[in-house]
């Protein structure tokens, strides 16, 4: 710990930190931020959360898509989808409710128009997909085979299952298993499949385990929490859709708990160890570090992009500095460090 960044762990200023045992400093004073999601190696762990970065193009006015680990796209469905009526959002303390209803152009327009743009810009793309039936997920996955720049598929199973009276897939281990198994079977073997989990379940560990058993190469967590707001002037719900998903810093403690619980279950041998993409209210590099210490191998930045459109690159810089300040020589050394 005397080379590279000057051995912060030996430095008096770093005395507050409980320094990790082994660190590898890269020549030139860098720190290895690379992280692995199945067979995909991302240069760094910061991604955008689905639905908070479009398909990458708009945010390219604020930062290079290639500068972050990956762009996770807005969830794509098989066909164009109008989404819900407005109002679709309400600001809440340190967060917001959204009720977009998965508006999107459908997979064909996405593959023909949006994906090539991101690939040409050098961006790595994790495509979020959803459907009302397992077959929809399979068709979407097949359509993505060989598509440029796709480094992962995130199955958004927090969407209603038509065959089961609209109950969301992610609420039930068996239906979660069915979707993930089918997507894993249909996907290019070299493309990792991530299962995006909902926190609105009795036991997120049970759902996570079902997804891992089904072959998920990683788990993205958490999706939004169901909430609602009533306007006390009109005395009616604010959202046209009545309820909506709560996101932002307000949900961060819930999200960190979920990541910690699932990582603990992996360490316990209750399920195979797969990387976790942690998200929920990440606003700073230290927030990202919290998720990594809880067990996340990568993070997604969502709602905070609305506050600060260049947040993903800022958070990456802050995370790098925070890891170095704590004497970590690599991202990997910090993953799950809170469990020691």
């Amino acid at each position, binding site marked *: 710990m005397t080379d590279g960044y000057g051995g912060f762990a030996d430095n008096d200023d770093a005395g507050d930190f409980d320094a990790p045992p082994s660190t590898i400093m890269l020549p030139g004073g860098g720190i290895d931020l690379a992280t692995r999601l199945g067979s995909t190696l991302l240069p760094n762990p910061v991604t955008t959360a689905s*639905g*908070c*970065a*479009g398909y990458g193009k*708009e*945010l390219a*006015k*604020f930062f290079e898509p290639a500068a972050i680990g990956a762009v996770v796209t*807005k969830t794509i*469905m098989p*066909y*164009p*989808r*109008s*989404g*819900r*009526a*407005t*109002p*679709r*959002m309400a*600001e809440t*303390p*340190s*967060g*917001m409710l*959204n009720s*977009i*209803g998965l*508006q*999107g152009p*459908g997979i064909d327009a996405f593959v023909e128009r949006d994906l090539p743009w991101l690939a040409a810009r050098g961006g790595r793309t994790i495509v979020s997909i959803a459907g*009302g039936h397992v077959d929809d997920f399979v068709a979407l996955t097949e359509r993505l085979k060989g598509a440029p720049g796709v480094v992962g598929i995130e199955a958004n199973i927090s*969407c*209603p299952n*038509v065959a089961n009276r*609209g109950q969301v897939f992610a609420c039930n281990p068996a239906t979660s298993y069915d979707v993930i198994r089918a997507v894993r079977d249909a996907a290019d073997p070299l493309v990792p499949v991530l299962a995006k989990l909902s926190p609105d379940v009795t036991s997120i560990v049970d759902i996570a385990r079902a997804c891992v058993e089904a072959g998920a190469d990683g788990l993205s967590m958490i999706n939004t929490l169901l909430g609602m707001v009533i306007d006390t002037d009109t005395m009616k719900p604010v959202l*046209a859709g009545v309820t909506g998903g709560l996101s*932002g*810093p307000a949900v961060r403690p819930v999200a960190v708990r979920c990541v910690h619980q699932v990582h603990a279950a992996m360490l316990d041998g209750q399920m195979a160890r797969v990387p976790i993409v942690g998200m929920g209210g990440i*606003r*700073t590099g230290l927030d990202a570090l919290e998720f990594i210490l809880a067990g996340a191998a990568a993070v997604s930045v969502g*709602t*905070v*992009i*609305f*506050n*600060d*459109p*260049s947040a993903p690159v800022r958070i990456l810089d802050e995370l790098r500095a925070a890891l170095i300040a704590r004497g970590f020589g690599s991202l990997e050394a910090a993953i799950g460090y809170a469990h020691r």
Partner: protein
Amino acid sequence: MALPLQVQAEIVGREPAGAYHRMVLRAPGIAARVEPGHFVAVAIGGADSAMLLRRAFSIHRADPAAETIDVVFAEAGRGTRELARLRVGDSVNVVAPLGTPFPLPAEPVSAVMVAGGYGSAPMFALAEKIVADGGSVAFVLGAATAERLYGVDQALAITEDVVVTTDDGSEGVRGFVTGPLPEVLTAVQAGVVYACGPMGMLRAVTEVATEHDARVFTAVEESMACGVGVCMTCVLPVVGDDGVSRFVRSCVDGPCFDGTKVRWDDAGTIPADIEGAAAMGAH
């Protein structure tokens, strides 16, 4: 399309303006990119603020020489109340210019600017541009009360054709802007109408302008979470060039729309013929 910048802007001017506040911001690099109809997204509070979403305001004036932009805003809720507390020397984080500005006529034209309340904010710079290009302008400025009118003096500095309406008759003609509008359109033989204000007003102005064979461009005010086109909260049903109606983002495809393309009566619903409506039925 002008690339937006995100900068920390110093408040260099503050003054009351009737029921509103006018705030001048030194925002390096932004003013030169601004066209009439662009908006600015202002962050409320600092990096720890519990109000995460930026507030959108029309850019009232942009002065590239002084590197300033300014906005005129009403205290509408907790965010704008917070902004109203700021003083000269304080700073706010801004992203601008955003949105699609008003299309300018290709040739000199007779234009009528119609605005409700602070909706007039973007109209004066637009009117000056039209006049500088050899066109002529008239104004119809309306508000609920006299103190909610904004910029009558600025309008009078550009043209003598200024009609004022108030709902309560406290200034000008009692009633809505659509009252005197037909007469004004005929008198100046208007080729185009520019309008900014509440949705109901924009719908009515579009109708009147269409009856008078004038083009009509409207600046809408939809709730926006991101302001930059990534979240899909700000959508309106709009008819595309291909005749297909879609929910389009008012933050990037608007806020300035051809008024005849916006399906005003269907805002807040899912019209059966909007692209992708069928997929909503499934779940």
